[in-house]
């Protein structure tokens, strides 16, 4: 798949209110348990106003892969990072290199985990369960178009109210 067609999970900070439903759902979707500390997507709350959920961005030429001394991490053509648990020894270099902090060390297994975009469900469950549609599963091109649209709407409203 061409990288420009890759869909990623993006989060709208205006809509995200920090409810963490994505985290609960993710732990269930990924491991069949309810434990937000095992979620691949994480909500960041910076008081008093900022909330944003972040997960794997499917980077081009990802730093996490480069950092792994045991070649445990690979990237599929659709951008999903795959962790070979037999090779990963939990050194955590990839955790340190990910600029978004979304490569995580699993609490029990001590192997790293990365969002797999719910490949086995066919669609990211966090996006499906987000009650405010803050999470979207889109290409970056679509995400940019939505932002442009929003900006234009605001501009038009402001012009109209003058």
């Amino acid at each position, binding site marked *: 798949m061409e990288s420009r067609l890759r869909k990623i999970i993006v989060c709208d900070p205006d809509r995200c*209110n*920090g*409810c*963490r*439903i994505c985290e*609960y*759902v993710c*732990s*269930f979707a990924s491991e*069949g*348990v*309810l*434990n*937000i*500390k*095992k979620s691949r997507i994480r909500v960041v709350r910076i*008081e*008093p*106003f*900022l*909330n944003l959920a972040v997960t794997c961005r499917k980077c081009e030429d990802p730093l996490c892969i480069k950092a792994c001394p045991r070649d445990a991490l690979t990237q599929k053509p659709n951008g999903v990072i795959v962790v070979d648990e037999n090779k990963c020894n939990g050194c955590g270099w990839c955790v340190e290199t990910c600029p978004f902090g979304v490569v995580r060390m699993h*609490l029990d297994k001590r192997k790293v985990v990365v969002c797999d975009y719910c490949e086995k469900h066919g669609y990211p469950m966090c996006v499906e*369960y987000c*009650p*405010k549609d803050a999470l979207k599963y889109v290409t970056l091109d679509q995400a940019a178009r939505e932002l442009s649209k929003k900006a234009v709407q605001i501009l038009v409203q402001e012009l109209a109210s003058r």
Partner: protein
Amino acid sequence: MKGYAGKYLMVDLTRGKTSVGKIEEQMALNYIGGYGFGARTLYDMLPNPAQVDPLSPENVLIWWTGPLAGTISTAGNKYAVFAKSPLTGIFGFGISSGLFASEFKSAGWDGVVFTGRSEKPVYLMIDDDNVELRNASSIWGKTTWETEEMIKEELGDESFTVASIGPAGERMVRLANITNERNRQVGRCGLGAVMGSKNLKAVAVRGTRDVEVADPQGLVRFIAELNERCQGPATEKYRVYGTPANILVHNKLGCLPSYNFQKGTFEYAEEVSGEMMLKTHVKKIIACAGCPIACDHVNQAREDYAGTVSSVDYESLALLGPNCGIRSLDAITKAVEICDTLGVDTISAGNVVGWAMECFEKGILTKEDTDGVELRFGSNEALLEALRRMCLKEGRLGKLLSEGVRRASQIVGKGSERFAVHCKGLEWAAYELRSLQTSTLGFAVSNRGADYLRSGSYQVDVKGKVDRLRLDKSRGKIVYDGENQYAVIDSLIICKFTRGIFQSMDELAKLYTLVTGLSMTGEQIVRAGERIHNVARCFNVKCGVTRKDDYPPPRAFEDPLPDDVVKGAVIKREEYEEALDSYYECRGWSRDGIPLKRKLLELGLSREAEEVGVEA
């Protein structure tokens, strides 16, 4: 059984020792969690509550989550705190939400029971199984918001969630609350003062365990459906304007308390409405963990109070605003910030300051009594200064207000008791006394004192399902049903804003079963609600509560409303007596408000029947 952690922590603060207790299946089935567990344990742990000074080491402080906490259940991450209340002298409890309860359950605990008193300030750290009382000397004196930051810093991980008291709790202000995650409070009944009396500054918790549920697939599917319903009309009010939407609704109906409940409308209602607030002050809407609704409207103040940030809901807004004659959203935002950071309940605070303003305007309190504060309705400066002094117990005014409205009015006397708007010592919330009369009955019979959260009986009034300007014998049943259902909601514990999305009590029972694996029907769960309510009442009877305590304050009977929309509305004594009788009859209590032995035995409460129950 799943859902529950199955164990709770006991902390003896006097000896600095901890131990572990177990939750048995029978306890789970009979009392559900939250309110139910609190009623059961408070009754058991304080066998002679009348003899216990709430601020002495003999009082207990009990925290419970419910079976839903930490699961993905819709708006189900709540915890409740219990003690004999220093404000009311009876059954005291409050519920808060946020992430705290989820972390607590995930750490492997259903609750924690504190006894005794620590010699020095401490806080409790719970890190899964690792529990520790830690020195809190360096954080004693700090605000709740500072305390959260300092504890996270000290423990080296901001994923700890902290519930703490502010300087008001430390000083045992009787209105003191407990705050977690800045904006969420165990608000009522002065439980922060109980923490302060025990030298317990905070509880910090981090949990990393899976929360096991009986049917994860079924639960997640059911929650998807419930969360979808939460985007519908039943919760629209909360999502868009938050609870402040009530300002204009209540103003129109003449049931928005203003000027210490002298009126039921506010001439500047538009200026402090939810609609206005959303337009000019709301900077962000946030949600508690697991909540698909998101009602919390965080304000940013401007002009004189620029930089002030606080979360403003209807009760805070109405009592610190119209009830004190205040028309500035900036000042109200500041007032809430003072209450939240120094640590007092905004409802009680707005109520007692409103009372003091009426005293001042009537000449009952003078500038000498207020240490120079011109305590007039509508004065932003007076409100903020009074709140600050109350929280810090500063000077004559601060000390007086810190006692709560019942005690303060008894101290001042001179007829000020007549317009101290409370029941059983708990300050009346922002529902007018005379123009919502089913509500008033519900407030007056509530186990906690003047309480809008125990039966929701205002709903039939606001929705026009009954004649809200009078009472009759149909109202007892409305309050009775509401109380039993709310006791279930408060025990599970689930947010009341979801009540419109459940089609029946069977659905709540279904949720309980999906989580716990214990079979439960709607009828059984309501029965548990009735049982829970009766245990709390029996505790209150032991504290001396009888029929005489189940009345609204004199203003409800004696001062007809002046507002055009509800002109002359007043509660007629004989109608009230009839409605109260009808309530006792539904409850199976004596005419004096004491549970009958027969009723208690029917609910499986043999000890209560023996200790408290009376013959028909």
